[in-house]
């Protein structure tokens, strides 16, 4: 049983993508738990626990394959969402003509706040290895 260095690198970059999707799933479930009525809490908690377990299993697989502790850049999942915000608010170069209008001013203000958010995300300190997001929060 042997993996060459390219294959190990593929696993080291591929498994964090699986982990990132599970962090996002945990976040959605955590937000759902905050919004749900108490009688709906149980199925959400069950799904949340399954998401945590899946995350743990990504780490376990990473180690079982002899790749050491799973390392992921936790800014990536946040930046993905921030990019969606930027796209949703449009490209400022495309609407220069409207820059004096009331609506355009509001959009410009939203873009400014989005840029500040992006800046804060970029400056999140790298995670300490190994990471194990357990979703409690």
């Amino acid at each position, binding site marked *: 049983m042997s993996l060459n260095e390219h294959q190990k690198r593929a696993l080291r970059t*591929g498994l964090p993508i699986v982990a990132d999707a599970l962090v996002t799933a945990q976040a959605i479930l955590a937000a759902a738990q905050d919004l749900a009525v108490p009688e709906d809490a149980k199925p959400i908690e069950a799904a949340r626990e399954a998401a945590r377990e899946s995350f743990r299993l990504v780490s376990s*697989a990473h180690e079982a394959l002899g790749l050491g502790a799973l390392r992921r850049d936790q800014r990536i999942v946040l930046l993905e969402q921030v990019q969606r*915000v930027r796209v949703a608010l449009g490209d400022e170069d495309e609407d220069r003509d409207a820059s004096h209008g009331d609506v355009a001013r509001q959009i410009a203000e939203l873009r400014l706040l989005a840029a500040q958010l992006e800046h804060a995300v970029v400056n999140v300190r790298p995670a300490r290895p190994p990471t194990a997001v357990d979703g409690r929060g």
Partner: protein
Amino acid sequence: MIPQSSRERMAMEAAEDDARGLLGVGLPLAARAVRLTAAIAAVQASTEDPETFDRVQRLAADLIARIEAVAARHHINLGTRHVQGLVRAQVQRALDALDALLDERLRGHGALDAETDAWVRQAVAPLRESLRRLDDLARLLPEVRL
């Protein structure tokens, strides 16, 4: 700026219409992405540097408040999506990433012998099973909209 001519005024009005159109389409998408940003920051803050994640959460809260205010002013319904679809999309994404890794990316760097292939698949088998279980549980999620 005061429009100098009717042509300029018409151009400005057209640009304002475009901007309103952007708000109508973009604000609901932006709102969901910002809510998710805050939720991801909250989850990650539970195990990592809480201070920097606090800042992300604060800025996300400011932005969502502003988005809601702009939406209210322009009578834009921000809309929501059932969390079941949102969670299942992430599970599918995880499964797709795993399949792409095993079936394409690994093999793209040289064929795996049968023994190694079996070893790799065995290592990720519990993960795959857990993802399927998560998908089953996601199907049972109550109607909560985000």
